[in-house]
Each structure stands twice: as structure tokens, then as C-alpha cells.
């Protein structure tokens, strides 16, 4: 479940991209969890068509995933299949990162690819033909231009090859009800139970069921066999009790298949992975030096196609030769000697087993998280609190007030005061120990409880991001008359106001981009 302000930010984003109605439906799903269409209508008090249309928009833009599940009938009725809708929180938040995604593609693959991606981001999901049409429109070309079409297809497969684009997930996969699954797991024994454990929630199972097979996901092919779920589910939206009909369709599934255009979308996962790599490399650069950054960058580049999930703990083990070869590929790397690469690997604390090296990425991310929180502590509570917080954060266990005072060179009384303040604001965890013997009868022990604090910090960051967006919208709204005046008429006071507005916008937007990087460090990496 997303945090309080995470949800508020998501709803705000949806409302600014798709309007208030869609936002209302989305908020309902974010707050109450997965729901069937009927309940959404009930909770939002919108009319059925509005809800239906809103859901279609959300699905089109990859903010909602539908799935079908059998439900027990009430009052002795036969069980029926009901379509459920789940909001995809991460995907909604990704919408504010589109400029970053575009910048990555533009840098790595060039303008043409960027344009294709832009279309996909704008429309959520497109078939290749739609992409082609869009290209014709924007480039003002008449149809039938073969070379243009070839070029576009080529660029599209480049995007697919580096996995920035993927096949859309199934529209509405069928999920076995949870109780049935549970019983099945018990029978299958410990090993498979462990596998299912990873996919605990119904939502996770639905996502797994919807995802295209790995072999198909990035396969360039324009038509696919389909059960035609799409049409069917649209019918479902207007008539939700189609259990009978569906069974009928399912039984005939073999004959019912027909050719259907494949829909494509941006693969957010790959972009997040890229951004994660970038964040690690930048962290190595500021914490260590350029050499370490170049070597880490080479390692991540070389293992790019073999990473399977985003949050891998360490890079794939590579031999010295492979690393050195990759380092040589980059311009900055060419000046590095083998000895230099070795030193950089040592700096990165690469673990070497059997002549291969692997870098602990998780610990780099954790360092970055620590830095962010420490910097907040410094700003809010001052230098001495910063020192104490770092001490406790590094220690990772309880420390007594006096010990903290000694190590940080702060007077004992002052130490206690600062610790109390941090504790009051939930930055520290405190335990009292009452000793029966001796003069001092009570000891206070302190520690940083990372798990709960990190959640709290993340929520505040979502809050701050929301505030930046609200303020920006507010500023633009306040000065909207200026935005309408043609530039040549902006003189004197008007010119000043227009200048200020531009500056405000730059400051707010760049701050948001930076803040978003920090959010990703805590949530996505």
C-alpha cells in the first residue's frame, strides 16, 4: 500500500493529466485497493458510464490493470467470474518522469527513437500501425513512403532491442481464487510453496499472469494470436455478470482465436533500471572518483542484457578481461591502465570470487539513502544532531546517552536535549532502562530505526513533491494573463513579471526533478 502522500501525489498527477473524473476513480482504487466495477460506481457515486470511461483511460495509460477472478455466488447462486481493477501506483508516479525517460532515449538512441517513445508515452499504448500513422502526421509525409516506414521500423526494433519498449500485458488475465491456490500449494510441497510465497498477493499474481511471456515480450512481430479478451472485457464493463458467456467463450477458445494487432508500450522497468545505474555511477563519482565511476559504468553496461529484475543486489560477476574491454570502449576509459582499473575495483569494494568481480549495488543505494536523510537532519536540527544521527545510523544498534555525548563531543545535557528532539519527531527510537543498583537509576538508549524512518521520510518527500507541483501550478495560474501576452508586448513591469515567472518555473521544476531522484532512491531502486 502506498503512503498517504504518495497517494495524494498520484491522484494529483492523474487529475492534471486526465481530469478530475478519472482522478476520482483512481483515488478510489488507490485508497480502497482492488475493486470490481460495481463497487467503484458505488463508492465514487459517479454514473456507470463515467466509471467505465475513466477505467478505460487508466488502462490505456497503464495506470490500472484488470483481471478476472471467480467469486463465490451469494445466496446459493453459482459462482461467477468478476472483473477486478487494481491501480498501479508506481506506473502513475512514473508519469512525472517521462521527461527523464525521453532524455535517456534521446541520448542513447537519437531523435527518431525519442519521437517514437514520445508517442507511446502520450498515448499509453499503440500498435505499430498507429505509431506509423502518428509519424506520418508529425513529419508531414504522405503515405506510402517506404523508406520512411522502413526507417521507423528499424528505430522501433532498436527500442525493442534495448528493451525500452515492450508488448502490453494481457488485458484481463484469469486468476484462480486465493483459497483454491492455497490448497494447491500445500499439496505441491515446500519447494513450490516458496515460489508462490514471493507472489503472495492477488495483485502480484494478477500482474504476473498478465505479463507477456519473456520470449514474446520484446519480440518484434506485429500480429498475434489472441483470445480477444479486449472486446470481451468491454462487454463486461456494461454487463458484469457474464460468467456464463465467458465459460462459453473459454470452451471454444481454441477456435475463437484470431489475428490481432499487437499493442506496445514503454517499458518503465527498463527505464527505472537505467536510472538506478546512473544513480549508482554518480554516487561512485562523488564518493570516490572518476575512475571508480568509469569502471562501475563499464560493469553495468557489460551486464546490461543479463539483469533480470530492477533491484538486483550486486552486479553480475565479470572477469577482469571483460571489465577492461568494456572500460576501453568509452572515451574516458581509454586512458585507464589495468592497474588503475584494479584500484577502482578496490575502491568500489568489488567482491572477487574466482577471478570475477561483482559490485554491491544495494549498499551503494543504501549509502545514498543515508546521505539524503542525514542531510535533512543537518538542515532541520543542526550540526551536532547530524553527528549524533550519523553515529547512531552507523552503529545500527542501541547506544546510551553518555556514550553518544563522549563520541560526538557534545555536553551531556545538550546531548540529551538534542536526542529528545530527534526522538519527538520520530527520527530516533528510544528505550529506557531502569537499573536497580548504583546511583544513576535510569539509562536512556537510542537508535535509528531505519525501516520506519525511511518510510516516514519517503512520505514527506512525496508531500514535498506534491507541494512543488501545486506551487508551480499556482504561480502559472496567478500570472496566466502574462502568459497570454505576446512576447514583444512584454515591457517594463510586465517584462519583469514574465522573467520572474520563468525563473520560478525553472527553480520549481528542477527542484522537483532532483527530489524525484531521491524518491526513486527510496522507492524504486
Amino acid at each position: 500500500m502506498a503512503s498517504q502522500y504518495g497517494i495524494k501525489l498520484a491522484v494529483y498527477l492523474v487529475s492534471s493529466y486526465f481530469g478530475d473524473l478519472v482522478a476520482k476513480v483512481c483515488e478510489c482504487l488507490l485508497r480502497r485497493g482492488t475493486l470490481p466495477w460495481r463497487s467503484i460506481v458505488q463508492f465514487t457515486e459517479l454514473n456507470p458510464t463515467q466509471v467505465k470511461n475513466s477505467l478505460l483511460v487508466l488502462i490505456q495509460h497503464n495506470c490500472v490493470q484488470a483481471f478476472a477472478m471467480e467469486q463465490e455466488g451469494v445466496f446459493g447462486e453459482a459462482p461467477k467470474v468478476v472483473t477486478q481493477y487494481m491501480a498501479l501506483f508506481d506506473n502513475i508516479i512514473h508519469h512525472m518522469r517521462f521527461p527523464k525517460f525521453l532524455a535517456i532515449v534521446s541520448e542513447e538512441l537519437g531523435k527518431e527513437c525519442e519521437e517514437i517513445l514520445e508517442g507511446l508515452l502520450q498515448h499509453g499504448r499503440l500498435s505499430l500501425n498507429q505509431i506509423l500513422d502518428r509519424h506520418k502526421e508529425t513529419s508531414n509525409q504522405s503515405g506510402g513512403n517506404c523508406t520512411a516506414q522502413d526507417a521507423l521500423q528499424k528505430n522501433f526494433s532498436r527500442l525493442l532491442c534495448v528493451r525500452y519498449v515492450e508488448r502490453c500485458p494481457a488485458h484481463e488475465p484469469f486468476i484462480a481464487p486465493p483459497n483454491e491456490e492455497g490448497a494447491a500449494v500445500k499439496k505441491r510441497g515446500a519447494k513450490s510453496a516458496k515460489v508462490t510465497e514471493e507472489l503472495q498477493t492477488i495483485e502480484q499474481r494478477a500482474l504476473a499472469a498478465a505479463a507477456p511471456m519473456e520470449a514474446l515480450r520484446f519480440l518484434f512481430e506485429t500480429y498475434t494470436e489472441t483470445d480477444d479478451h479486449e472486446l470481451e472485457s468491454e462487454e463486461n464493463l456494461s454487463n458484469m455478470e457474464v460468467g456464463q458467456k465467458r465459460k462459453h467463450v473459454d470452451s471454444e477458445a481454441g477456435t475463437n482465436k484470431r489475428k490481432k494487432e499487437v499493442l506496445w508500450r514503454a517499458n518503465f522497468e527498463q527505464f527505472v533500471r537505467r536510472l538506478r545505474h546512473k544513480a549508482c555511477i554518480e554516487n561512485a563519482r562523488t564518493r570516490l572518483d572518476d575512475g571508480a565511476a568509469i569502471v562501475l559504468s563499464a560493469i553495468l553496461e557489460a551486464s546490461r542484457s543479463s539483469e533480470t529484475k530492477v533491484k538486483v543486489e550486486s552486479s553480475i560477476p565479470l572477469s577482469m578481461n571483460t571489465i577492461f574491454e568494456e572500460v576501453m570502449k568509452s572515451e574516458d576509459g581509454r586512458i585507464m591502465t589495468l592497474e588503475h582499473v584494479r584500484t577502482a575495483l578496490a575502491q568500489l569494494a568489488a567482491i572477487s570470487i574466482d577471478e570475477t568481480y561483482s559490485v554491491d549495488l544495494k549498499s551503494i543505494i543504501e549509502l545514498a539513502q543515508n546521505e539524503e536523510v542525514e542531510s535533512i537532519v543537518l538542515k532541520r536540527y543542526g550540526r551536532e544532531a547530524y553527528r549524533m544521527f550519523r553515529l547512531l545510523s552507523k552503529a545500527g544498534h542501541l547506544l546510551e546517552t553518555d556514550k553518544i555525548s563522549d563520541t560526538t563531543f557534545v555536553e551531556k545535557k545538550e546531548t540529551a536535549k538534542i536526542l529528545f528532539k530527534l526522538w519527538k519527531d520520530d527520527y530516533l527510537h528510544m528505550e529506557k532502562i531502569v537499573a536497580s543498583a548504583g546511583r544513576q537509576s535510569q539509562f536512556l538508549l537510542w537508535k535509528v530505526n531505519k525501516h520506519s524512518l525511511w518510510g516516514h521520510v519517503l512520505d514527506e518527500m512525496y508531500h514535498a513533491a506534491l507541494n512543488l507541483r501545486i506551487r508551480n501550478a499556482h504561480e502559472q495560474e496567478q500570472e496566466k494573463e502574462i502568459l497570454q501576452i505576446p512576447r514583444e508586448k512584454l515591457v517594463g513591469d510586465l517584462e519583469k513579471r514574465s522573467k520572474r515567472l520563468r525563473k520560478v518555473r525553472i527553480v520549481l521544476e528542477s527542484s522537483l526533478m532532483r527530489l524525484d531522484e531521491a524518491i526513486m532512491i527510496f522507492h524504486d531502486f
Partner: protein
Amino acid sequence: MSRSQETLSLKRKRPEPNALALTPENVLLNLIKSKGDMGIWKADMKRETNLSEPVVTKALKALQGRNLIKEVVNIQNKGRKHYMAAEFEPSKELTGGAWYTEGNLDKDFIDILKKSCSKIIGKFKVATAQGVYDFCKDNKIISVDITTQQILEILRSMVLDNEIVEVKSTGLGEFHKIPVGTVCYRTASGMGLGQGPKVGAMASIPCGACPRINQCTPDGIISPKTCKYYQKWLDFGI
């Protein structure tokens, strides 16, 4: 303390008037001695001996006059009168340790040491605590007596300040003189660490340091639309 008890102890005094007699002075002296380098607080003496305030005060004065006891500062509670037998030196718990003089943290001394350490590490790029200590000794950088332990404590606090970094020697490059695995301290080679704390994304916007973030809502009385911190931040003087 009741008067009857006092008279009782006075009465007792008469039958045994020699030095070992249980005079209030002797009772207190024994008690104070038994506390060793921890000393004892006046109120505790009263409680443990059941003597009255004026008697205790008078006896303490007499003992101090004969240089048998001394008054010491207890940093746990500076207002409390704390006494100790003359032959003892106050324990670390009372004085606060080597960094305290007369119950106060010697900040100036600490600062001087920090600056010196910073210079030495800057010079060597990388050094162990022992190395810094030896350099101080050999070059008579610090006039007062210090220990390696003290240098280590200073270096550790500088690490907490993010002014220097604690690393383990790899034996390579700049570490070639230091055995592999030894803990040492070095200045930053990168731009971030060791140059003081980095300002994070959150800390560089008003909301990151805002004391009222919990009351702030999009359309509330405290809101980003009207917030005075934003007002100040976005006032570019244009």
C-alpha cells in the same frame, strides 16, 4: 533529621572521646572514603548517615579544613555539592573524561586538535591514528599531553562530521605504506565525501526543513500556495 537522633549521636560521643570515636566527622570521612573515586553527594551523605544538615555542613567544613576531603564537580549535575577523599582523583564518570576541564567540555582544545588532525591528514592524504599521533609528537604540534586514544576519538568525530573518511587500507596506490586491512583516515578523493555534508534534494527545498510540514495541506491554512517559506525562496528580487 530529628533532634533526638542528633542528641543521641552527641551523647554517644562523650563516652568514647578518642580518635576512632563515631564523631560526625569520622562517620562522614569513612563514608566519603568508602566511595573512592566516585565521591558522594551531600544529600546522599545525610541520607546514609541520618545526620542533620547543619551537622553535616559543619563536619564537611572541618574535614576540608584539615585537607582530608575535597569538593569536586560532577558533570552529571553541576549544581550538586560533591565530595571526595583527598587521596583520590575524580573518576571519568564525574569529570566527563579527558575532554572536560572543571566540568566543562573543553571545546577550544577539541577544535585545535581537530584542525591539526585535519592538516596532518591533508598533508599525508592517508594516515592511521598512530601515524597522526606520532607526527604530533615528533613535531611538537600539541604542547599538552595527549594519548593515541584521544587522537583516535578526535578522528572518529571528524568522520561523523564527514570531514574525513574512514577506510581500510587496500595496500594499493596511496595505501602502499600501510599494511592491508589497517583502519586509516583519508581526505576525500571524490567531490562529495569528506568535504562536509552534501546537501540532499530534500534539504535544498523549503519543505525539507519545514517545521510545519505536518500541518501543511494543499488547501489548508498552511499550504504551498500561501507558504511564507516559498515566498522567500522564490523572491529573486526581480
